[in-house]
C-alpha cells in the first residue's frame, strides 16, 4: 500500500517537474523565436536596402554616367531563322 502511495507521489512529482520543464522550455523557445524575429526583421530591412541600392546603381542614368552607349544600328547583325520574324517585333512579346 505504502509502495503504491510512494509511486503515486513519485509520479505526481515527475508530472509536476515535467510540466515545469515543458513550460520553461516553451518560454525559452519563445525567447529564441523573439530573438530570431528581431534578427529576421533586421535582415529583411537590410535586404530591402540592398535591393534599393542595386536598383539605384543599375539605373540607366547611372549607366549613362559610366559611358554606356547604345549600339550603332549600322554595326548590329541580326540573326534570324526566317525573314518573317524580322518583320514584326511586338511589345506584347515582353522580354
Amino acid at each position: 500500500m505504502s509502495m503504491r502511495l510512494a509511486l503515486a507521489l513519485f509520479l505526481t512529482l515527475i508530472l509536476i517537474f515535467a510540466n515545469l520543464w515543458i513550460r520553461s522550455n516553451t518560454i525559452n523557445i519563445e525567447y529564441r523565436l523573439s530573438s530570431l524575429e528581431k534578427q529576421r526583421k533586421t535582415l529583411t530591412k537590410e535586404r530591402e536596402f540592398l535591393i534599393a541600392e542595386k536598383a539605384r546603381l543599375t539605373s540607366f542614368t547611372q549607366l549613362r554616367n559610366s559611358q554606356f552607349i547604345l549600339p550603332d544600328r549600322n554595326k548590329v547583325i541580326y540573326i534570324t531563322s526566317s525573314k518573317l520574324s524580322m518583320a514584326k517585333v511586338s511589345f506584347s512579346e515582353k522580354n
Partner: protein
Amino acid sequence: MQKRIKIIKVLIVFSFLVVVFRLFLIMFIEHETYYERAKIQQIKREEILSKRGNIYDRKGRELAISLEKDSLFIDPKQIDSSLTLNMVAQYVNFDLNSFDKNKRFIWLSRKLDSNEVEKIKSLNLKGVGFIPEGHRFYPKGILASHILGVVNIDEKGVEGLELYYDKYLKGEKTSRTFLTDAKGKKLSDGELLEIRGNDIYTTIDEGLQAIVERHIDEAMKKWRASTATAIMMDPFTGEILAMAVRPTYDPNNIALIKNMAVLRNRAITDLYEPGSTFKIVTAAAALEESIVKPYTKFDCSAGYIEVGGKKIKDVHRYGVLTFEEIIQKSSNVGTIKVAMILGKERLYQYIRKFGFGEKTGIDLPGEIAGYVKPPQKWSGTSIGAIPIGQEVGVTALQMLRAYSVLANGGYLVKPYVVSEIHSQDGKILYKAVIKRERIISENTAKTMKEILKKVTEEGGTAPLAKIDGNKVAGKTGTAQKYDLKVKRYSRDKYVSSFVGFIPADDPRIALIVVIHEPKGAYYGGVVAAPVFKAISDEALSYLNVPREDAVQKGLVITLKGENHKVLVAR
C-alpha cells in the same frame, strides 16, 4: 519536548494550510482580478508595420520601393530633465519650447537615417523611443517622377500613380498582441506578420524613359525653354512607354521643392494650342469624306486667305499645291480651303472623333478634357483658325493619341500606364485591357501615313526629324502662345512641337515632343524635330529595331534548316 515538536508540526501544517488557502483564493476566487492584472502587465499590443507595394517598369525593374525607417518620439512625462532633450538636439532639429508636457506622445523627427538612429539609441535616454515606419524610396531619382508621383510623410499618395492607385498600393494598418516577461522582454509566438500593399507593374520602360528624359533635358538647356513635354506610346495598344515633363523634381527630396507647380504632370493637365500638328484632323476628315484625293490641287498662290475679315498667311507663297503638299509644307491657306469645303459641322465631328475635347481616360490623376468649341459658338474667324490648330486647347497626350490613329490603321486607343496589379501572394488583381475604337478607315489612315512620311523628306517642314535607316511619319507644329495680359497672341512666345511615329510603315512607337517658349528659334521643324530624331534614333537602337535596309546592307543572317547552332559573342 514532545509537546513542542507537536506545536511546531501543527504550526507547519497550519502554515501550509494558510498557503494552500491563499492559493485557493488566488486560483479560484480572485482569479479574474489577477488574470486582468497579468494581462495588463504581460500582454502588449503592437502595430504591425504596413508598407506600400512596389512599382515596377514593364520589365520588372523597381521604380518605387518601400523601405523601413525609424521615427523618433518622446514621452514628455517620462523625461525628467531638459538634459535629455539637449542630448537629442545634437542629432535632430526641433523647438525645445514647443512641447505640451501633458501629452504622452510627441513625434520629434520622422524617418531618420540609420546613423542618427544608432547614435541616439546608444544614449539610452528615458522617455525617448523609436517606431519603425514605411519609407518610400525612388531608386531612379527624378526618372519618371511625373508618372510615379509622390507620397506624403504618412505614406499616402498625393500625386501620380501613388495617388491614382493609392487604395491598391497602401498596406492596411493592423495590430497584434504579444506576451512579455516581467522585464518587458518580448515572447514571440512564432507568427511573423508583414503587411504590404499590392505591387504595380507599369507599361513604362526604364530604358526608353531615360532616353526621353535625357534628350528633353538637353533641349530645355539648348533652347532655354520654360517647359517641355515628351510622351512615347505604343500606337497599337495605348501603352505609355515613357512620359517626361520639365521642369521636374526628385521625389526622394520633396522637402526641397520650392514651387509646387513642378509636381503637375503637364502632359495631361496643361492645355496648349497645337498649331499645325492639328492639321491632320482636317486632312483625315477630308480624305475620309472623299472630298479630296492626295493629288487634288489647291491654289495657294496668294499666300494668304481672308476669313471673317482676318488675313491668315502662309510662311512662304507656295503657288498651286496638291493636297499632300499642303500637309507636307504645312500650308495654312490650303488647309483652311480644305476645311471650308468640309464645313464646320463635319470638321467639329471629326475633331471629337479624334478624341479632342474629352479626357483620354489615362490612369493618372488630374487629366483635363481640353477645349473645343461646338460649331454654334464658332465666330466668323473660327473656320480659319481651328483647322490650323488655333482656338482649340489640347493636351500633349490627346495629340499623340490622334497621331496613333494614323499609325495603327484608324483606331482611337485608350492610353494607360498600369498593366497589372499583383497581390503579395501572387494573385493578379487587375489586368489592363486594350480599348480601341475605329474612327477612320484603314485606307484613310494609310494615305495619311504616306503624306506624313513626306514631311520629313526634302521639301517638307521637318527634314531634321529624318532618321538614318528608318522612315519617319510626323508633323511639325509652331503656335504662338496666347498672352492673357494683353489678350492677343504673343509675338515672342511660341510652342514648338513635333509628333509622329516610327518606323513609318511598321510603327513601334508614337512620340510627341512639345517645347514651350524656346529662345533663339521657334519653328517646330527646328526646335522639336531634332529632339524627336535624337530620341527615336536611340529608342530604335534600344528596342533592337533593324534598319529598313538591313537585308540589303547584309546585316541580317537568315538561318536555313531547323537544327542550327549559332554562336553569339557577348
